[in-house]
């Protein structure tokens, strides 16, 4: 009887994990490794053309930035990556980023995803994953 209960409990927890993974993981929806790389490349490209935003990246090692953004988007979307970059708070310290500048970067990311052909729902899920980082990014 107890064995049976444990079995049922295990089955349920297995199902729950599966559901959570299904709900949270959208790495494939972003297009997997290739899709995320394309988004990040487009994103960096969008930033490079925006005079109000590109100033924040003066002196930034773009190769490293690209690598860390790919890690971050991959990790956030449930892909097989660890984010090894600095915390959002540390990265943006002293930059005094305004809400307007933050919004602009969101728009650049949306444009990057549009250009990468990312489905709307996957775009929305990435925005949802990144949105909680806002307090660590603005007004630092």
């Amino acid at each position: 009887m107890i064995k049976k209960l444990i079995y049922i409990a295990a089955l349920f927890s297995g199902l729950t994990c599966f559901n959570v993974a299904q709900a949270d993981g959208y790495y494939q929806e972003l297009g997997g490794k290739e899709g995320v790389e394309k988004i990040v490349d487009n994103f960096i490209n969008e930033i490079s053309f925006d005079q109000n935003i590109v100033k924040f990246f003066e002196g930034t090692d773009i190769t490293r930035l690209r690598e860390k953004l790919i890690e971050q988007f991959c990790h956030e979307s449930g892909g097989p990556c660890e984010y090894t970059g600095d915390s959002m708070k540390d990265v943006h310290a002293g930059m005094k980023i305004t809400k307007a500048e933050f919004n602009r970067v969101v728009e650049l990311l949306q444009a990057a995803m549009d250009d990468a052909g990312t489905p709307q729902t996957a775009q929305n899920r990435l925005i949802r994953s990144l949105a909680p980082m806002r307090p660590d990014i603005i007004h630092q």
Partner: protein
Amino acid sequence: MKTKLITLTAVAISTLAVADVNAGSRLLATSGVTQLEGGAGGGLTPWAVISGYADEGEYSIGAFHTSTDVQDFRLKVNGVSASYDNRFEISAALQSFEIKGVAGDLRQEIYGAKYRIYGDAIYSALPQVAAGIQYKRLLDGDIADAVGAEDSDSGIDYYVSATKVHLAAVAGYHFLWNATLRATQANQMGLLGYGGDEESGYTLQPEVSALVLLRDDLAIGAEYRKKPDNLSAFDEDSFSDVFIAWFPNKNVNLTLAYAELGSIAGSEDQDGFYFSISSWFK
């Protein structure tokens, strides 16, 4: 005449094609649209969002036009709105209510102010909350007098709204809801005066909206606005609608709705299309 129409259409289309000229920095569609009394919101009810796209330190200025055509009446609303700092909003609207087949119309001026008390509809865990007032002045009060309104000159509505966007919440699409509680004496928004023989004082009326963003620039949703029933002469029903709103850029948005306005001044089951445009110059 035909040339003029073609020119106008061309101008309208080229305006739509130009992106975000001189607009504020908030994200597309966070302006909401403009409701019947001139507040930023849905079509029927004010939301906690502040009009335009201004964020901290920025201001917005815009204008709007709404018209709705039902069996026995037509309502046109024209007005302007301004906001500052994503914090304050002021608006002025003129409603013209036409009774089909009858010369002349009923006009009401509405001056609105709204203050965002708390939060950010997208980014804060709790909803964005705002409080507002709408001062209403009836320019043609004879009908309001005739139907037994307590006051046919002016009235003030007070409301509190809460708006929340849940990102990617419905099968990956963004979902927005708004709940508003309005204290009002107005009969048919004030077009038939304020207070009546059945109820002369303020009553609390709930108003709710919900929508899904199919794309960053396209929303579909529905609204419900409960209204008082103060007059013994006429029944007054709640308003409801289903709508689609398009935000081609931050300078303009367009709303098409099908509205059920219920019983109005003795005419039952009034329903029809609702069209609204809001333009943001700054």
